[in-house]
């Protein structure tokens, strides 16, 4: 499949790479819930509503990472030449850039708030934002694979 318009290519490759990233983060979330990292999620997984919870969580991840991925895909197509690297390496670097500014930025901000106020929930938020480490690098790799293939 080939898409001539660069922005449309960025949109579609970003959308599909976002879906794959969403599946990756969903799996990591379920594994971390089963290993006891999220007590609330572990309780839901052990309840009668486990299937409902798994499906809703997956739909939520597909929606939010898919939409974000499509928008960042357009951005990727606009600044394709300027991003360092080649092929998949280029898009992987782009995924790490998004992770840095989109999530580690908030993570550091919440960590700082925790340090200043001593309120424990801010430290928890700072860990929560780093959860994006499970999808942006995966997103970056698949963005490159699709983008180069659909050229």
């Amino acid at each position: 499949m080939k898409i001539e318009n660069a922005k449309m290519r960025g949109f579609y490759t970003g959308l599909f790479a976002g879906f794959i990233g969403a599946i990756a983060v969903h799996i990591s979330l379920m594994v971390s819930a089963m290993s006891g990292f999220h007590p609330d999620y572990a309780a839901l997984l052990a309840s009668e509503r486990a299937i409902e919870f798994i499906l809703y969580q997956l739909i939520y991840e597909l929606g939010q990472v898919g939409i974000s991925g499509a928008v960042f895909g357009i951005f990727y197509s606009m600044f394709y030449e300027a991003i360092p690297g080649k092929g998949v390496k280029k898009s992987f670097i782009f995924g790490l850039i998004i992770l840095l500014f989109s999530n580690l930025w908030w993570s550091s901000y919440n960590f700082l708030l925790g340090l200043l106020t001593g309120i424990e929930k801010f430290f928890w938020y700072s860990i929560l934002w780093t959860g994006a480490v499970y999808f942006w690098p995966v997103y970056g790799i698949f963005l490159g694979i699709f983008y180069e293939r659909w050229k």
Partner: protein
Amino acid sequence: MIAGIVPFFLMHIIPMIEAGARAKDIPFLISQAIVHLGWNGIWGVIFGLFISIIFDRIPGRVITKGLLIGLIYALFSTFQPVCSLWAYGNVTSALIFLLGGPQDKFIFGILFTYLYKPPK
């Protein structure tokens, strides 16, 4: 770094002084100011490095280019968290993220464009 720190002064110092005058907790406010200055400065440097890579490809002159840089900064820092919060049904927090964040990024963008000279 300078472009990162100046918006901090504009956005945070005045409300902080007002709050400090009310709370009379000056040492706490001073420590908060120092930490925030460091944090904004560090992220200003990191984002400045990224923008310097794509600087030539951003259209416009000082103001327009600066506003676009601010928009890119806002896009990167708030779009995915807003999508995430919105999808979870936390609309109030999403709106706070969306409307409360971008102003200092636009100031950053304009200052960055004014201060930065791309290598020839």
